[in-house]
């Protein structure tokens, strides 16, 4: 009877025992696979948290290296090309720039809109969702959509302004900046309405330009429209002087900035970059603590699993001392006996490992429905499986070999003479 048949026969005869070992292997492998998947998911989740911290950098014209004509800086403005070029760098989630105008705005009947003091404070914007006022939560879009860089003549206004003037999304407004300088009238369609959340009465503001206008008089229009408003004015005192770029992963901010800085078509002598990731810096140590803790947990789980497998196998081999003695006594070579044990174990593992792969996928799926989004990241990949199968296989063989040493050292007679 060759050892292959012997191994199969033993497993089939002692099916209850085989089943138990199988279940143990299955459970432990599932544990390790889930652990690996969880470690990966944690990594992704931490990245997502970092993404929500709004880490950004600002590119602005460097006043210190430009000229000064007495009233304003003559440093060159940022060109649209340049802004888009930077926005195309990998790792940038979104961007915005502002071009401020102070237009008068009329409805489609030609009547000037009712508003609070002064005129309107108009931010020309590429992607208004990335405007500081929206990101900081001071304004909140409640209707319609934000301005995006593919819009041409769009505007978003405050709820108060809409209410006072009976405006709604889809209405058209006409803006004009300096009619005495022959700037054109620009028609804009209302695409969104925002709510003012912040407390404008808080005197914390620094009396910069914008602070003299009521929040209800703030409007955001697409960059094209803002450029249209100043067209023909001719003066070089207006243009985009700052652009803001938000990165997907705050931990990568430095790399992204470096990449931006390597864009050779931009004359970096005229512009400077400022990084802003205060929120990320505040939470980064606590966040990496969480990461370390989870990673440690997974390492502990894996290590413990290895120990468990060794313990279980050695126990099962040790309980077969008598059998080993008999096998040796009937003249079967020691290597053949060991090989039989190894074969039996591997036989179980061959079934248990793939099943663990499926079951851990099942576990991940169940968790997905229980915990929603977070758990969807818990994915058992084929790489995890390969890793576990290879390391697990080696471990099993080693465990069997080690636990049979004590028995194998003895002569069959000694073994059989031992009391069971």
């Amino acid at each position, binding site marked *: 009877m060759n050892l292959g048949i012997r191994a199969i026969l033993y497993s089939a005869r002692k099916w209850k025992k085989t089943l*138990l070992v199988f*279940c*143990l292997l299955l*459970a*432990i492998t599932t*544990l390790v696979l*889930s*652990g690996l998947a*969880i470690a990966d998911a*944690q990594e992704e*989740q931490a990245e*997502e*948290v970092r*993404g*929500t911290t709004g880490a950004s*950098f600002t590119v602005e014209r460097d006043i210190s290296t430009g000229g000064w004509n007495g009233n304003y800086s003559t440093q060159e403005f940022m060109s649209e090309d340049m802004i888009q070029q930077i926005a195309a760098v990998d790792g940038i989630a979104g961007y915005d720039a502002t071009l401020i105008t102070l237009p008068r705005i009329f409805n489609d009947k030609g009547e000037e809109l009712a508003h609070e003091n002064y005129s309107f404070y108009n931010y020309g914007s590429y992607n208004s969702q990335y405007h500081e006022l929206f*990101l900081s*939560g001071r304004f909140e879009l409640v209707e319609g959509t934000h301005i995006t860089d593919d819009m041409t003549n769009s505007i978003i206004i405050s709820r108060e302004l809409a209410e006072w003037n009976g405006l709604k999304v889809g209405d058209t407004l006409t803006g004009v900046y300096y009619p005495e300088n022959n700037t054109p009238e620009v028609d804009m369609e209302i695409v969104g309405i925002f709510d003012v959340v*912040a*407390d404008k009465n*808080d*005197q914390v*503001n*620094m*009396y*910069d*330009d914008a602070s*003299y206008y009521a929040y209800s008089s703030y409007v955001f229009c697409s960059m094209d429209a803002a450029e249209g408003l100043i067209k023909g004015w001719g003066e070089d005192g207006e243009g985009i002087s700052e652009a803001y770029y938000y990165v997907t992963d705050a931990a990568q*901010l*430095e790399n992204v*900035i470096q990449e931006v*800085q390597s864009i050779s078509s931009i004359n970096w002598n005229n512009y400077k*970059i*400022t*990084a802003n990731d*205060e*929120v990320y*810096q*505040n939470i980064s*140590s*606590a*966040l990496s*603590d*969480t990461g*370390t*803790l*989870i990673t*440690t*947990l997974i390492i*502990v*789980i894996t290590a413990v699993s290895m120990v*468990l497998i060794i*313990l*279980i196998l050695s126990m099962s081999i*040790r*309980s077969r001392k008598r059998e080993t003695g008999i096998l040796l006594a009937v003249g079967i070579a020691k290597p053949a006996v060991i090989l039989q044990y190894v074969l039996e174990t591997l036989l179980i593992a061959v079934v248990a490992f793939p099943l663990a792969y499926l079951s851990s996928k099942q576990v991940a799926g169940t*968790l997905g429905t229980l915990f929603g989004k*977070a758990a969807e990241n*818990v994915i058992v990949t084929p790489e995890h499986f390969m890793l576990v199968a290879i390391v697990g296989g080696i471990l099993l063989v080693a465990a069997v070999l080690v636990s049979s040493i004590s028995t194998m050292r003895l002569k069959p007679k000694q073994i059989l003479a031992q009391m*069971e």
Partner: protein
Amino acid sequence: MNLCKRACLYSVRKKGKTLTLLAFLLVMATLMLTCLSIQSATETANANIKKALLGYFTINAKTLENGIPEDTVSQILAMDGLSGRYTLRSYTYATYFDADGNLLEINTEGAAQVPEGYENAGRVVANSNSQEDSYFTDGGFEMVEGNPITTETGSQVLVHEKFAQRNGLSVGDTMLLGNVEDKDKTIPVTVAGIFTNTEEQDSIGMAPSYDLYDNIVFTDLSTASFLLYGTEGTTNVQYGDFYVNDPDELERIMTDVQELDGVDWESCTLTRYDNDYQNAKESLEGLQNIVFIAIAVVSVICFLVLALFLTLRLRGRVHETGVYLAMGISKGSVLLQYLLEVILVAAIALVISFGTSTAISHQIGSSLLSQVTSETYETVDLTGESEAAQEPTEDLDLAEIEVAVSAEDYALVWAFGMVLCVASTALAAYPIMKMKPKSILSQMS
């Protein structure tokens, strides 16, 4: 031979088996304890993240006749859930005099108008810490001489470089701040420092004279309180920003604040600022869920493995059971013997596991600590082309993460471990116990 003795003798005789069981239980208990201690540590880490996202609310009591009194501020600070970090602010206008009561000159160049009565007046900004004021944090103001104002009392002012030059003031000099309407109400203050602006004011031509950067004066809260409310010896403020530990509790805390006596809350505006937290909230909950998932998976599988292992162990003793039963020992006492053996070993394992898991937790804890200390602060230095705008991270007073086995966790593992050992042994023994001794012994071993 009573069953206790039998259990002991068996455990001693079968040293190898007992040791394997001990090792097994020890490993399991250690794993569970370590898991639980890691879980509570991640909870601390999570609370730290929440705290570091700096959720706060602002009380605007500008319209109140007496602002927020000192008592109310200390009552708010004593409330549960406040992180202790806060900023008090007041804003007013004052006429400037020198020590002898002569009017000081202000800058009017670039002012949209010089309002009547404000010919020698400017904006007075009082903040718990002048360095934290938005003029300094966002507006590009910088100290050039002297020290910032960090106390609530002390009758100090910071003046603009140009204002100091124009009026021949230097650090240490005394000047008077006078109520704009009631010129007799003056308060002497010492010039503690001189600041300048690094960015041009963009509202030149729009701002009235008193808002021009040159004419701004920073002072302490009690001086502002005197100018605003005429208080002496007590400090009332117009605004307060109060930071909380857990932004989720903002709503609750703000409601509680509005129930405090002594302030007409109806006339105040309370605004919550927790945008950073709201942005990160969902992802953060995801992270916390992942930890929970990990612990849940480990616990379930641990129990499963333990039950299977005990079953496996007992199945190897079918023969022995048959012999006991044949000898006339009752089924109950045989079962009890098995239970006793397991419990004995489990008790030892659980006792030792406290030591091992404490050691492991300690190791994890110290690796976290060394990670913090080795995390040197890197500023973005790009060959001088970009400004290194980052300052070393503020001290947010975060809780230290402690990875330790708590008494509750230990008790929990004891209870669950014992119940599980008993249950799985009993369950595994059940099919054997059902059989007659004869049928057991006639089974091939």
